[in-house]
């Protein structure tokens, strides 16, 4: 219904002269099947070793700002472990590895005044660092608090500089950053598959993000939720599966698995 109205309005208002305007900003939609990247985290397997958050920090050049107490509460985190004891909300498990939920209806995207955060056609909630103006509206809108602000210009020691991942841009002071499901890895793999003229296989994506690759307990599974054959889809359909704060209607793309909740 709303799509019909939009089409009608578009037809009504589109003047012929506008058709002649350059049209470069169109987002590239990949040909073929539409994907919806998602993640399943098996809490019954998770050993709380923190390897996922360390690997994420290394992979995505997330600054740590050392032990300076001024930076307490100001150190960016893309993936972190949340212990919910003793006063955890009803129905939530005691331990939660928390990446960005990559919601299907993300509040952060709605509120961004300049489109610095947007939904990728493949379901990933992306952030354009260079476009972000640092208003932090996305941070206050995110019910999972999964966004971090660069409160200061990131500094790197000499050894850290040598370990920076060249595939991921470092973010300057004044921008918000977040987990991207290691989008650079996903993109590189898609490109390689395209050049080889084949579709992606589930086994090559299931441990693609750095957190999934680093998990020694094999608790994190990544994949295409649109593909009913994929492992992540099967896990998402499991009776053990649940999503966080479903009552808010954000439809997260991250599923958790737990035998007994609460």
């Amino acid at each position, binding site marked *: 219904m709303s799509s019909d109205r*939009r089409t009608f*309005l*578009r037809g009504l*208002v*589109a003047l012929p002269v*506008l058709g002649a*305007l350059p*049209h470069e*900003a*169109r*987002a590239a939609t990949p040909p073929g099947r539409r994907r919806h990247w998602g993640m399943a985290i098996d809490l019954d397997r998770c050993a709380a070793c923190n390897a996922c958050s360390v690997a994420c920090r290394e992979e995505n050049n997330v600054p740590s700002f050392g032990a300076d107490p*001024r*930076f*307490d*509460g*100001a*150190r*960016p*985190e893309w993936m972190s472990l*949340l212990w*919910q004891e003793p006063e*955890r*909300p*009803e129905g*939530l498990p005691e331990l*939660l590895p*928390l990446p960005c939920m990559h919601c299907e209806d993300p509040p952060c995207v*709605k*509120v961004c*005044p*300049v*489109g610095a955060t*947007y939904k990728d056609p493949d379901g990933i909630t992306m952030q354009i660092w260079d*476009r*972000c*103006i*640092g*208003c*932090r*509206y996305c*941070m*206050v*809108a*995110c*019910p*999972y*608090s999964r*966004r*971090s*602000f*660069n*409160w*200061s210009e990131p500094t790197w020691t000499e050894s850290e500089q040598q370990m920076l991942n060249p595939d991921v841009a470092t973010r*300057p*002071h*004044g*921008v918000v950053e977040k987990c991207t499901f290691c989008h650079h890895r996903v993109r590189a793999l898609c490109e390689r598959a395209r050049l080889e003229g084949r579709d992606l296989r589930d086994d090559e994506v299931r441990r693609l993000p750095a957190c999934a690759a680093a998990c020694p307990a094999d608790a994190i599974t990544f994949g295409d939720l649109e593909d009913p054959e994929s492992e992540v889809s099967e896990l998402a359909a499991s009776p053990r599966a649940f999503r966080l*704060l479903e009552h*808010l*209607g954000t439809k997260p793309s991250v599923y958790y698995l737990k035998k007994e909740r609460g």
Partner: protein
Amino acid sequence: MNRIFATPRTTPRPSLLPTPRLGWYVLFALGIGLVALAVYAYSVQLERGDIVTGMRDLGRGGAAWGMYIAMYVYLVGVSFAGITVASIARLFKLHVLEPVTRLAELLTITALVAGAIAVLADLGRVDHGLRSLPELARPSSPFYGTFTLVVAGYLFSSVVAFFVTGRRDAARMVHDGPRVLRWFYRVWASGYRFTSEENARHGRTTFWLAITILPLLVVAHSTLGFIFGLQAGRPGWYSALQAPSFIVLAGASGIGMLILAAVTLRRMLGLRIPDASIHWLGGFLWVLCLVYLYFTIVEELTATYAGPALDRHVAHTIVTGQFSRSFVVAVGCLFVGFFVPFLQYLRAKPSVTGIAIAAAFVNVGALVKRLLIVVPSQTNGAYLALEEGHYSPSWIEWALLAGTASLVLVMVLGFARIFPLVHGEEPDVDRDAPLPRDPIRKLACLLWAAIAVALVFVGLTDSFRLWSGDELDPRIPFAPAIFATGVMMLFATAIVYEVLPSRRRRKRSPRIVDLARTRAAPRVALPAPIRATERHHRSQP
């Protein structure tokens, strides 16, 4: 000498501008000092980053919004008074408010400018903000209304109203103002002559401006409420009551600030603002404070009695927990803002000082209440059991708070020295008075307004990405700026209508006696023998 009347040199013409007293110099110097401190503080923030503020990440022990956003919301609230008072005075012909209308409009403009500075101080990358917002702003974000309707529409319409209503006094000041500023008065007067035709046209312009600005005022203040009220993921914010309560608190703080400014300037500059104006504003103040207190009770009762667990938790944190002291201060101040003017209202002879003290309390209460809206839902309103936060502003934020407030003070005090803040005597404005046919003016206005509407339509629809579907960028570059320009042009139609000179030659319209100039500059008839001599000289070849 070819004039029949002349001003005798022995009686100097009293200036339309007041002479400042010592208090003016003290306050102005204090204001400049605080603005300078804020500039220094902001330079420190730019150099070292936002880590110098007390804000931190949400869910990791901090609040991502703090004093700057509270100050922004408060200042936009203060701006409420100007347009409301000026519009009410014009629409309902409330002559008792006329002496404060210009001061009110000035307060609106200065508060909006200071508010825009406060929100810019909050941005992590102000340069990107200034570049990206006009180019890429998206209406799906409640901030869009802030950047377009509040800053562009609301501010610009206030400037237009201020300009149009000030033309008559500017025309007076061309003759009576300081010599160095006469070019300024001439530009502002933009050819105003005290004719009955211009008077009638002026009446129509101000009436329609007042009519159109009032809905914009409601929309602009509601968008501020929507910034918080539309966030389902933040307990304590998500409420249909946010927008109306924002409007009411904006009214209370704005009227309070207007009372304070009127009383202060009356003392310092001897402005002729009668007690009756202050009493009327005091009456308005207690009504607004009472309504807001009612909203607060309803809000807290709903949240604590039957609200979801987290809304209850946030409400308890505010009323009896970590923020209870601030809550008591806010509610206490607002109660004083209701009770004291209400007592004055009941008395036969109300006290202006009492009303002014209550107005000061209301402003303190409003600022604290804004902080209570902004902060607790962030620090204590996480759905997941994240670390509860704490927020205390750093000296940088306090300095910027003082600086932005002082900027309003400095601008008002400074303006009072170059332009009369109380209207000169106005002829009765009759917007129904017949006007000669002026098809060129009508055509120019219609054309101008049509262009404005077209820009609004094109800019808004493309901002909504109606032509570009799911694309990230609008199809037309700077579509939001085009929308804002259209809104501004729409209000500028009033200027086109008033200022456009009539090209048709016709009989000169009779001049209205300008009472203000006549009183300010008493002119006496020359004695009969001198007049006879003049006539004799003129008759000579």
